[in-house]
């Protein structure tokens, strides 16, 4: 009897000891930031687990960042000036008509397995990127290349007809279908990086999505870092590449990317020194951080537009006067101040007003009187006879607040009734793509050229959810703007196109995006820029600096 009891207590003691030992480990040690600063390892919050590391599979910013560390394009982006710098190509020539680009590959540029990078690697990779079987969502970015679209849609089978040629081992010639001053910008995107053909073919067919070539033990890249560890949903670790041609300029010994989907958790991890830099910052934390002395809070404009897309094909918003009335009756300053804590920039156009060298057309102003007049002209004086209107948005606290604010503004300023419809993300995407909505929330991220925003409104464009169509606009954008060789001439047409667009008001602009994040004072060389891009080649860690005490 006693024996059993002793067994019981022993078991209990054993179990408790097990819990204590396995849970406590060996006590809390140094933080990531302290160790990282000593060893040159940067710890980055990076939104979500990347869907993969194959440049022809992934589409998101978070994955793009990791790829930017593992690969290098023909040209790379200078994080301060945003201008192209030599990457794999040490220099390049552009023909006077702007159609032919000749890239001279740097003889020192090699793959992480030591093999030299050749022009034919690019030809092979872009064939994979465009191949109809690959299913690359970013294939359209390469459609500026002559015959690329025809090959991608299966109209031609011979890749030899596409404007990409390896003239010599180290000379790549690209022929475009029209002059495209931003072609070099597109070459900075991860979808145009070269891949190592033999590595991919070793693990499957050229167009295979399901292969193992992106695993750390198989991975071959050409960037300043190499893939060391990929622990799904935990972290991705990259280390400094010993073969990268410009390795003397790389200061970090490694980077760890953490997929953290909840921004509140990310903020807490930053506070206890587990991260050097967050991906974002929860809205409601902005007031506290912006008043903190020596704050780690950083913010900068970001090339994205938040707007309400209006169904141009359905009553009552098929009437331009109704659309304009709705646009004029929104007090954007108030939304930016009260809901977004002044962290966004009120918008009065489609293109964010901070693209270098581009001047948007003159903005309209918040004008409730004029809005009421326009609505009366359209046949709804003071909202009489108004058939009702529904705002559709996807589940998110900020979207909901903005929708409620706009509902109130339209009711107060125009006397019209508005209903709100909240939808789960995928349902919402389908609703909008099928144009089965009246007014819907939209966000669009572009690049450093205005057509990346204006293209949304081309007749029959894949992303034209508003139903807007104007041959004059298409002509300005495609024929006039698309054929201009110089940036000045092109941007002049773009400005005219945007003016035309805003006169028809197919969408209701609300605000331009900003980047907002927390950055540890030890981080240098990672300036915030309008493209949210990071060039980890330039990142540095300065030990000895600490967060302000008031952060705890």
């Amino acid at each position: 009897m006693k024996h059993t009891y002793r067994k019981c207590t022993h078991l209990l003691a054993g179990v408790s000891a097990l819990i204590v030992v396995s849970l406590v480990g060996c006590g809390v040690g140094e933080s990531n930031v302290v160790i990282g600063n000593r060893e040159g390892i940067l710890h980055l919050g990076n939104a979500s687990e990347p869907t993969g590391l194959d440049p022809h599979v992934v589409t998101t910013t978070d994955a793009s960042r990791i790829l930017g560390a593992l690969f290098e394009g023909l040209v790379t982006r200078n994080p301060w000036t945003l201008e192209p710098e030599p990457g794999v190509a040490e220099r390049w020539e552009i023909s006077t008509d702007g159609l032919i680009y000749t890239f001279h590959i740097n003889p020192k540029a090699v793959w992480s397995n030591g093999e030299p990078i050749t022009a034919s690697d690019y030809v092979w990779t872009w064939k994979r990127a465009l191949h109809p079987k690959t299913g690359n969502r970013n294939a359209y970015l390469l459609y500026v290349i002559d015959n690329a679209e025809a090959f991608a849609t299966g109209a031609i089978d011979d890749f030899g007809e596409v404007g990409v040629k390896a003239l010599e081992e180290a000379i790549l010639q690209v022929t475009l279908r029209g002059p495209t001053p931003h072609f070099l910008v597109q070459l900075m995107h991860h979808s145009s990086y070269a891949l190592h053909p033999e590595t991919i073919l070793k693990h499957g067919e050229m167009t295979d999505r399901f292969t193992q070539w992106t695993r750390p033990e198989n991975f071959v890249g050409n960037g300043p870092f190499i893939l060391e560890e990929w622990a799904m949903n935990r972290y991705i670790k990259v280390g400094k590449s010993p073969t990268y041609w410009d390795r003397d300029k790389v200061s970090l010994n490694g980077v760890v990317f953490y997929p953290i989907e909840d921004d509140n958790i990310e903020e807490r991890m930053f506070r206890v020194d587990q991260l050097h830099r967050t991906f974002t910052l929860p809205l409601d934390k902005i007031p506290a951080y912006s008043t903190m002395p020596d704050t780690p809070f950083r913010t900068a404009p970001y090339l994205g537009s938040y707007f309400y897309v209006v169904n141009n094909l359905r009553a009552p918003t098929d009437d331009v006067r109704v659309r304009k009335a709705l646009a004029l009756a929104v007090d954007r300053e108030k939304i930016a101040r009260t809901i977004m804590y002044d962290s966004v920039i009120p918008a009065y156009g489609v293109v964010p007003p901070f693209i270098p060298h581009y001047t948007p057309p003159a903005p309209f102003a918040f004008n409730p009187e004029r809005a009421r007049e326009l609505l009366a002209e359209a046949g709804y004086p003071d909202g009489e006879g108004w058939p009702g209107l529904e705002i559709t948005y996807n589940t998110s606290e900020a979207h909901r607040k903005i929708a409620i604010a706009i509902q109130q503004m339209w009711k107060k300023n125009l006397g019209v009734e508005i209903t709100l419809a909240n939808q789960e993300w995928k349902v919402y995407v389908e609703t909008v793509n099928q144009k089965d909505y009246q007014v819907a929330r939209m966000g669009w991220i572009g690049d450093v050229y205005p057509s990346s925003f204006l293209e949304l409104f081309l007749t029959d464009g894949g992303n034209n959810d508003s139903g807007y169509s104007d041959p004059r606009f298409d002509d300005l954008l495609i024929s006039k703007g698309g054929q201009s060789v110089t940036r000045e001439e092109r941007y002049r047409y773009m400005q005219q196109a945007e003016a035309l667009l805003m006169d028809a008001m197919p969408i209701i602009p609300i605000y331009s995006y900003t980047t907002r994040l927390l950055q540890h004072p030890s981080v240098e060389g990672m300036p915030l820029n309008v493209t949210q891009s990071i060039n980890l080649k330039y990142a540095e860690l300065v030990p000895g600096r600490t967060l302000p005490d008031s952060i705890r």
Partner: protein
Amino acid sequence: MLKFLISRLLQSVPVILIVVTATFFLVRAAPGGPFDEEKAVLPEVRKALEAQYKLDLPLHEQYFAYLGDLFQGDLGPSFKYPGRSVNEILASGLPITAELGFYALLIALVIGGTAGVFAALKPNTKQDYIPMTLAMVGICMPSFLLGPLLVLVFGIYLELLPIAGWGMLPGDKILPSVTLGSAYAAYVARLSRAGMLEVLSQDYIRTARAKGLPEWQVVVRHALRGGIIPVVAFLGPAFAGLLAGSFVVETIFQIPGLGRFYVQAAFNRDYTMILGTTVFLSTLIVFFNLLSDVAAAWLNPRLRAQFQGGK
């Protein structure tokens, strides 16, 4: 006993088949698909993607193809994470979620069991009211509140414990285990108190006391065995529930377990992943229910006799 086991196992086959079928057709009926994103997918790209995942076949053919793969243990490739199979993702998440669930259950048993037994020994006194009130608070407090509270106190203010991760920093397993375990500890406390109260008023306990046994022997050797039957019955479903329901805790503490994949799969319309996790978890639930029935039968002499009689 064997007959009982076999019949229960056979019963579970149609249950799981129904789960597979219902899930398969329900996820297809949901609006929006795995390839729908804000940026429209070009028609030629969509065609290629659908062909790669066999979505271009008629639905019933897809269903039978899936069943065929399933019987061979192949859950297919993930839609969201091409290059990884659902089997691989489950295999990477399961050990972590199971470890978390195991610690949580241990905490629940040790803390909850002790509190429940002590409360039952002196019912309607302070020794009863205090732990039972705490248990009520524990049941009512959701983990999305308790987790951040613990993080704030132990992680940020006291700087004692790491606030996120699993097996990356020393001590990072404590807070998630406590958070997940506390709600279950509260249930265990209430169940063990009720069970003990009933047993302690039985005649055989009075006999044990009359024999002059010390009180701790009466409690531990005689009363506990009967008193924890409700707890044992609760354990099987509880463990399965821990595996399937650890999503909140896994999110709060950045733990790469199954729960996060399960919930994200639904948002992503990752058809194979939703099916894979559902099938896997329902199998586990069936299995753990069976296990707790067997354990309860073994602990309860009357039920045990029934099985022996039926042999």
